[in-house]
C-alpha cells in the first residue's frame, strides 16, 4: 500500500493532485489502476483490502477526495464498502468491475456510487473522475447557500435538505422526497457556507455516536414526520452544527428508515402469510422497524458515524442484555431510536415494542419484533444489548454487530433484549446493509456482531426457517468474533432474519431463543462452524452450515453463503434461504460480509426471496427450537436445525443463537416469540 503525502498546494491545482484511494483485491488490476491514476496526476493511495481502506478513510476523512473500489472483493463486498464510505465519510465512490451486468450497475447506483466503470479502465475515463468530487463539493455548498432562500428549485421541500436532496441527486446519492422540509424554507443557516463554494470544501461534520443519538432523540421527540432540520437543530443544541448538516443527515436517516420499513414490511407480509399464531410476532414491529432500516439502508445515506463508533461488542452487547431487555432493554439502550424508526414505519413500530415484551419465552423476543423498526443507528448500539439475546451478547461482540446494527440496531434495540435477537438481527441486517461501512469498521462488528447480525439477517429473512440458519449463522457469527465482515453479513442476515422472523411467529420464538443462545455462543465461532457443518449434514440445504463453518473460519465466503442459503431452503425453502442469507451474512463476518450482501449474484442473495416463498412457519420452527438450545452447544442447535427445522424450532434457535450471536439470538428470539 502506498500512501502519498498530501500537498496543500496541489489542491489548488485541482484536479491535479486530487487524492484518490484505490481498492482492489487483484494486484494486477490495482497496479495498473494506480499507474493510470498517477498518469492523470492524482495522488494515489492503494490497498488491496477493503478493511484497510476503511481504516485509512476513518483515520482522516480529509485525506482523500475520491474512492475507487472494485466490486468483487473477498474481504468485503464492494457495495458494502461503498455504502459505508458514503454514510460515514460522504466521499464520492466510483465502482469498478469487470462485470458489466446492468443489475450490478444498478446496484452500484442504488448504493450510492457516483459512477461505475468497467475494467479494463482506460486513461480517458479516469481523467474525468474528478468531476464527481467537484460536483459533490458544489452541491454541498449550494445546499447551504440555498438553505434560506425561497427560490429553491423545490420550494416545497424544506430548506437545505430539500435542495440538498435534489442537488445531490446527481451525485448518485439516493435522495428521496422530504415532505416536511417545508419548514426549512425560511431557514437561513449559512454559517457553513463557504465563501467560495466551488473550491472550498465544507468542513465535514462527523456524526459521532453521541451526536447521532442526540439527533435521533430529537427526531423522535418531534416525530419522524414532523422532524425538520431547524427544530432538530434546536433540540440538539449542539454548537457548530448547522441546519444544513442536520438536513443532510436527516435525509440520510430518512432513507435509512425507508429501507428499514420496506424490509420490515416484507417481513410483515411474510409473517402475515405465515399466519403466525404469535400475534406479537406478527405484529413484529420489527418488520416495520426493519423496513425502516431498509429505508435507511436503502438510502444508504444514513450517516452513521456512530456505527463506527459502536463498540464491537456494542451490538452484541446489546443483544446480550438479559432477557429482560425486551423492549425495555432496547429502549434504554437505544430503543428510542427504534421507536423513532418505528414512527416512520408507523404502526409496526408500536407493535414491535409490544412484541418485544410479549415474548414470554424469549428473553426479549418481543424486542425482536419491534426492533427492526426503529433501528436507529444509535439504537444499534443499544441494540447490541438488546439483540444479544442474552446469551449471545456475551458471545457477540457487540462492536462487531454494532456497526452493522447501528443502522439496523436502532430498530433492533428491541432485539437487543434477548428476545429480540431476531429483531436485532433483522435490524442489524438492516443496519448492516446500510452501514456496511460502519460494520466494516471491523471492530465493531468484527467479531461477533457480524455473525450475529448475519444470523439475524438470516433469521429474519426466513423467519422460521432461517432461524435455523440464523442460529447456525449466528453461532458462526458469534464465533467469528474477529470477523469484521460479520457486520456486513449481519446486514444481510438481518434482513433476512427480519423477514423470516416476520413470517413465522414461531420462528421468532425460536429465533429469539436462539439469538439468545447465540449471543452467548457467539464467541464460539468455531462451535458455530461445527454446528453449521453438522447442520449441513442434516440437511441437504444446510449448506449454510458449511458456509458458517467457513465463515467461522473467518473466510466466510460470501459466495458460499448465498449458496448455502439457497440450499437450506430446500428443506424448507425458507430455511435455506434464510440460512443462506444468514450464512452469507455470517460468512462475511470476516469482512466479506459485503460480498454476501452485495453479491451481485442474485442467487447469492436470495434469502429474502426464498424465505418468503417458503412457508415460513416451517422454517421457523426448527429454528426456534434450535435457539433455545443454542446455548448448549452450537452444534446441537445446528444439528437440530437441520433436522427438523420445521418441527424443531428450538434446536434451531439454540443453534442459531449460538452461532449467530446477537443476530441470531434476536432472530431466534423473535421467532420464538412468534411461535
Amino acid at each position, binding site marked *: 500500500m502506498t500512501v502519498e503525502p498530501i500537498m496543500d498546494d496541489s489542491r489548488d491545482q485541482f484536479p491535479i493532485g486530487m487524492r484518490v484511494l484505490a481498492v482492489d*483485491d*487483484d*494486484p*494486477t*488490476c490495482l*497496479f*495498473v489502476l494506480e*499507474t*493510470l491514476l498517477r*498518469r492523470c496526476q492524482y495522488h494515489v493511495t492503494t490497498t488491496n483490502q477493503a478493511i484497510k481502506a476503511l481504516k485509512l478513510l476513518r483515520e482522516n476523512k480529509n485525506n482523500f477526495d475520491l474512492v475507487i473500489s472494485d466490486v*468483487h472483493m473477498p474481504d468485503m463486498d464492494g457495495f458494502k464498502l461503498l455504502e459505508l464510505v458514503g454514510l460515514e465519510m460522504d466521499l464520492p465512490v466510483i465502482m469498478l468491475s*469487470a*462485470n458489466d451486468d446492468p443489475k450490478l450497475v444498478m446496484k452500484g447506483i442504488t448504493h450510492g456510487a457516483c459512477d461505475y466503470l468497467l*475494467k*479494463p479502465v*482506460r*486513461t480517458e475515463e479516469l481523467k474525468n473522475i474528478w468531476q464527481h468530487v467537484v460536483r459533490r463539493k458544489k452541491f454541498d455548498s449550494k445546499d447551504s447557500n440555498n438553505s434560506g432562500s425561497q427560490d429553491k428549485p423545490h420550494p416545497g421541500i424544506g430548506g437545505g435538505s430539500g435542495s440538498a436532496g435534489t442537488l445531490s441527486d446527481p451525485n448518485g446519492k439516493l435522495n428521496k422526497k422530504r415532505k416536511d422540509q417545508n419548514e426549512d424554507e425560511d431557514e437561513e443557516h449559512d454559517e457553513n457556507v463557504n465563501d467560495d463554494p466551488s473550491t472550498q470544501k465544507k468542513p465535514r461534520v462527523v456524526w459521532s455516536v453521541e451526536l447521532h443519538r442526540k439527533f435521533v432523540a430529537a427526531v423522535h421527540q418531534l416525530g419522524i414526520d414532523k422532524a425538520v432540520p431547524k427544530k432538530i437543530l434546536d433540540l440538539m443544541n449542539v454548537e457548530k452544527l448547522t441546519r444544513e448538516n442536520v438536513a443532510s443527515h436527516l435525509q440520510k436517516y430518512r432513507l435509512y428508515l425507508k429501507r428499514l420499513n420496506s424490509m420490515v414490511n416484507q417481513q410483515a407480509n411474510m409473517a402475515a402469510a405465515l399466519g403466525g399464531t404469535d400475534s406479537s410476532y406478527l405484529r413484529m414491529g420489527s418488520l416495520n422497524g426493519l423496513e425502516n432500516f431498509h429505508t435507511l439502508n436503502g438510502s444508504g445515506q444514513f450517516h452513521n458515524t456512530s456505527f463506527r463508533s459502536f463498540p464491537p461488542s456494542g451490538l452484541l452487547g446489546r443483544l446480550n442484555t438479559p432477557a429482560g431487555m425486551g423492549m425495555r432493554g432496547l429502549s434504554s439502550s437505544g430503543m428510542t431510536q427504534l421507536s423513532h424508526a418505528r414512527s416512520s414505519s408507523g404502526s409496526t413500530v408500536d407493535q414491535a415494542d409490544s412484541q418485544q415484551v410479549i415474548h414470554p419465552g424469549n428473553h426479549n423476543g418481543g424486542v425482536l419484533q419491534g426492533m427492526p423498526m426503529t433501528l436507529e443507528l444509535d439504537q444499534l448500539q443499544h441494540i447490541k444489548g438488546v439483540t444479544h439475546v442474552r446469551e449471545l451478547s456475551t458471545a457477540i461482540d457487540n462492536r462487531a454487530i454494532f456497526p452493522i446494527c447501528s443502522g439496523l440496531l436502532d430498530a433492533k434495540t428491541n432485539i437487543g433484549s434477548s428476545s429480540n435477537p431476531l429483531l436485532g438481527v433483522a435490524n442489524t441486517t438492516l443496519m448492516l446493509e446500510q452501514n456496511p461501512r460502519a460494520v466494516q469498521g471491523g471492530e465493531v462488528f468484527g467479531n461477533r456482531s457480524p455473525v450475529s447480525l448475519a444470523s439475524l439477517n438470516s433469521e429474519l429473512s426466513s423467519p422460521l426457517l432461517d432461524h435455523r440458519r440464523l442460529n447456525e449463522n449466528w453461532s458462526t457469527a458469534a464465533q467469528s468474533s474477529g470477523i469484521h465482515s460479520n457486520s456486513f453479513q449481519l446486514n444481510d442476515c438481518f434482513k433476512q432474519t427480519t423477514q423470516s422472523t416476520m413470517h413465522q411467529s414461531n420462528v421468532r420464538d425460536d429465533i429469539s431463543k436462539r439469538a439468545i443462545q447465540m449471543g452467548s455462543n457467539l464467541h464460539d465461532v468455531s462451535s458455530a462452524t461445527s454446528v453449521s457443518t453438522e447442520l449441513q449434514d442434516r440437511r441437504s440445504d444446510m449448506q449454510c452450515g458449511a458456509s458458517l463453518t467457513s465463515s467461522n473460519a473467518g473466510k466466510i*465466503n460470501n*459466495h*458460499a453463503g*448465498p*449458496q448455502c442459503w439457497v440450499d437450506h431452503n430446500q428443506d424448507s425453502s425458507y430455511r435455506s434461504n434464510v440460512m443462506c442469507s444468514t450464512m452469507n451474512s455470517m460468512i462475511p463476518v470476516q469482512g466479506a460480509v459485503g460480498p454476501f450482501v452485495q453479491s451481485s*449474484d442474485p*442467487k447469492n442473495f436470495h434469502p429474502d426471496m426464498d424465505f418468503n416463498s417458503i412457508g415460513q412457519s416451517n422454517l421457523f420452527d426448527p429454528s426456534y427450537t434450535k435457539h433455545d438450545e443454542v446455548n448448549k452447544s452450537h452444534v446441537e442447535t445446528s444439528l437440530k436445525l437441520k433436522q427438523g427445522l420445521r418441527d424443531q424450532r428450538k434446536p434451531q434457535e439454540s443453534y442459531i443463537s449460538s452461532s449467530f450471536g446477537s443476530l441470531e439470538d434476536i432472530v431466534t428470539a423473535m421467532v420464538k416469540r412468534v411461535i
Partner: protein
Amino acid sequence: MERNQMHKHIFLMRQSFFDQGLLDEQFIQLEELQDDANPNFVEEVVTLYYRDSSRTLLNIEQSLEKNPLDFNKLDNYMHQFKGSSTSIGAKKVKAECTQFREYCRAGNGEGCMRTFQQLKKEYAILKKKLETYFQQTRQAGPSETACRPRMN
C-alpha cells in the same frame, strides 16, 4: 546494425501478438503508461499478473477436481482471473475465460474442464512469448537513441 535489427525483430514480434489475437488494445494502453518514470512498467505488470494468476489457476484446478463441481465457486475464481487477464490485455486467455464461465453457468462440468485445459495452454503460450519479448527488449535497450549514445 545489430541493435536496429533487434529492434525490428522485437517490433515484428510485438505486431504478431496483435495479429494473432494474443493481445489486445489494453496492452497498448499499458505500453502508453510506460515512460521514463516507469521504464519497465509493462513487464512489471505482466510479471505481477503471472505470479498472481497462477495462484488463481491453481485454485480453479483444485476445484475442478472436486466432485461434485462447485460451479459457483469456479465462476467466482474465473471472474477474478478474467479480471486480471483483461487488465493486461490477454485476449485469447480472456476468451477462454468467458467460455469457461458460460459452461459454469450452464453447469457443464465437462465443458469447463475442456475449456480450462485450453485456457491453460493459451496462458502458457502467452507467457512464454511475452517472456521472450521482454527479454529481447531489455537486451536491445531503448529504441530511442536520442538520449543514449549509440552503441554500434
